[in-house]
């Protein structure tokens, strides 16, 4: 009995030592070397691919953000600032509850199923809103023109992109609100439309932050 106990203890000791040595290799050396190389060769990317406008960091090109008006008094949800291109709905984002010293963004999806009544309502409301705000005096949006990404939340809640269809759908509104010719906004969207990588990977997309940054620069020049 004692013999098998000491045997087990000896074996467990070997297990622990093995783990500690391998922790040194895979949990200390490996990440440090990778970090060194990443910081040296890809400094901008390794630190979050931020975008600057007018000398100020305005976010990361990879992380979607809201383009809202400052919230009015007593308003629960801030209203979208319609002078800027809008991204996808973000119903899946959470707020942190554990480490409350920070106001961290909690990435995530809504996880609602296709027959979930709440999701059906969200989609309905989003579609109605997209049609309403994007229809201008001389240009009415038909509900069938609204692409799926405009009315659904993404997996991360932080999708930085929208489909080119959704960007084009917003062109008349952007032109009207900013007093720009439609054609000029149209070509701005075209310039910022990225096709599939090598022609077949992923889907065509428009990065909303880059597009809005370019729009701001365009407005500043006038």
């Amino acid at each position, binding site marked *: 009995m004692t013999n098998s106990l000491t045997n087990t203890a000896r074996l467990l000791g070997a297990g622990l030592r093995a783990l500690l040595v391998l922790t040194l290799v895979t949990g200390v050396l490996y990440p440090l070397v990778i*970090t060194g190389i990443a910081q040296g*060769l*890809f400094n901008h990317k390794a630190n979050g691919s931020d975008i600057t406008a007018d000398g100020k*960091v305005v976010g990361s090109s990879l992380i979607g953000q809201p383009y809202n008006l400052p919230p009015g008094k007593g308003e629960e949800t801030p209203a979208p600032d319609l002078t800027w291109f809008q991204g996808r709905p973000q119903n899946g984002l959470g707020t942190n509850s554990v480490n409350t010293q920070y106001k961290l963004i909690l*990435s995530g999806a809504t*996880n609602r199923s296709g*027959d*979930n009544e709440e999701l059906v309502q969200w989609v309905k409301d989003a579609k109605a809103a997209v049609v309403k705000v994007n229809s201008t005096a001389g240009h009415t949006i038909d509900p069938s023109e609204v692409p*799926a990404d405009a009315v659904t939340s993404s997996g*991360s809640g932080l999708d930085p992109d929208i489909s080119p269809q959704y960007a084009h759908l917003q062109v008349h509104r952007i032109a009207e609100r900013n007093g720009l010719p439609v054609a000029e906004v149209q070509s701005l969207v075209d310039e910022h439309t990225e096709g599939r990588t090598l022609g077949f990977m992923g889907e065509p997309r428009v990065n909303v932050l880059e597009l809005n940054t370019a729009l701001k620069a365009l407005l500043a020049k006038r």
Partner: protein
Amino acid sequence: MGPVTAGVLQLLALTGALALVHIPLGTYMARVYSSQRHLRVERWIYKGIGADPDTEMRWPAYLRGVLVFSLAGVLLLYALQRLQGVLPGSLGFASIDPDQAFNTAVSFVTNTNWQSYYGEQAMGHVVQTAGLAVQNFVSAAVGMAVAVALVRGFAGSRSGELGNFWADLVRGVVRILVPLAFVAAIVLVACGVIQNFSGVHTVGQFTGGSQEWNGGAVASQEAIKELGTNGGGYFNANSAHPFENPTPFSNLFEIFLILVIPFALTRTFGVMVGSVRQGYAILAAMGTIWLGFVSLMMWAEFSHQGPAFELANGAMEGKEVRFGIGGSSLFAVSTTLTSTGAVDSFHSSFTGLGGGITLLGMMLGEIAPGGVGSGLYGMLVMAVIAVFIAGLMVGRTPEYLGKKIGTREIKQAALYILVTPALVLVLTAAAMALPTPGHSMTNSGAHGFSEILYAYTSASNNNGSAFASLNADTQWFNTTLGIAMLLGRFVPMIFVLALAGSLARQTPVPVTAGTLRTGKPLFAGLLVGAVLIITGLTYFPALALGPLAEGLA
């Protein structure tokens, strides 16, 4: 070009890349596990462990190595999480509660990576990098070691010896996983995955205000997360988070990383048993199931059935624009047919049938191509069953690779395939019967049942993905899912190693005219049939109550 064509082209490109790489990688891995030489760094490690890497082990000794090493892993990871609040480098993140710390420790040691916590608000640098990421490496190496031990059982003769666990573990880490992860991590950083040790970033926003994000060693963890078929995300959104998976290329590259070792191990198997044809037969069975599932998934998701998706005109809920339906379908199938469980889109918001395909993928036992190591040994156990069934049909004593499949062997194989279904069905039934677990559901009806069925399927098969609408951070789920992960990992390993032991004691019988040719397409077909029929019969009633009811509504 339409999205469907683009999806198919991505599938073809991935298949081509895997076909190219699996041969040299598989042959290399066979050489690693058969080598007589020790690298200098390995000698230092053996000295640190205090183990002699040249001692041959029989199956009980090999199993003891697996178990104590994993026990040490659970203890250390549990302690790290419980102490997080006082450890330096934790950014002020608090210690994790006991039930969640147990669940997470078990989850990472068993290669499951089920996560009942939010990565960005719960885990600091030390726990992520020196705790969780380490288990990403070593749990993968343990799986590969057990698979190699089973292969040695087929290849060996009379001695009953299966190799040395410590040598297999260390070589798997040092010669296979670390070099591959190194290259992969650099590629990921070049795509835009972050890699730093800074604290929480406060970054300005376009219309004013600011965002706060975590920094972290994400690329180094992401690489091994996929390569070791682990799947535990740095962030809650896992591979849907742009900092983990920023571009369409990184998405395909991550799917490639998930699949490359499991597929290449069939080559390793072929080389080690002295006939690459045997490896091709296993590869063909795995590849057929994988291709079939991807096609079904793309069909289900592109046809977007379900009230909300029909209204939205596409099943984009829970999916990212840059990946689209094609890239998301490819990822979802690859992660559930392996033991990965990483997600680039959220399975709970897939169509009813699409969600069912992810469930069925795990229920097959994750063998097409399966987790690193666990996929190969799972498929080889199914091959033993298939050979046995074929033997019954023609009335001959079945044999596989020159080893007789007798009473003892078939019992071990049968017990292996009974463990996970028993865990899944019993625990799901218990959760449905008790009053409180059901409160964790977000969706009701058939989809609510699927949430719980998915959770136990994922845990028992060591997958780790979720219908994340289930609130699993309760004592009931943390505890029962933890137990499911432990038993679902180690009980099957006991039967695999016992099977390896009894095979290794046998003297190979010569091939005769009556021997079933297991290196032929016919056998690969038989194997696919056996896998589908056995799993189908086991899980059909449960699937009918969940995804089938939803998908056909």
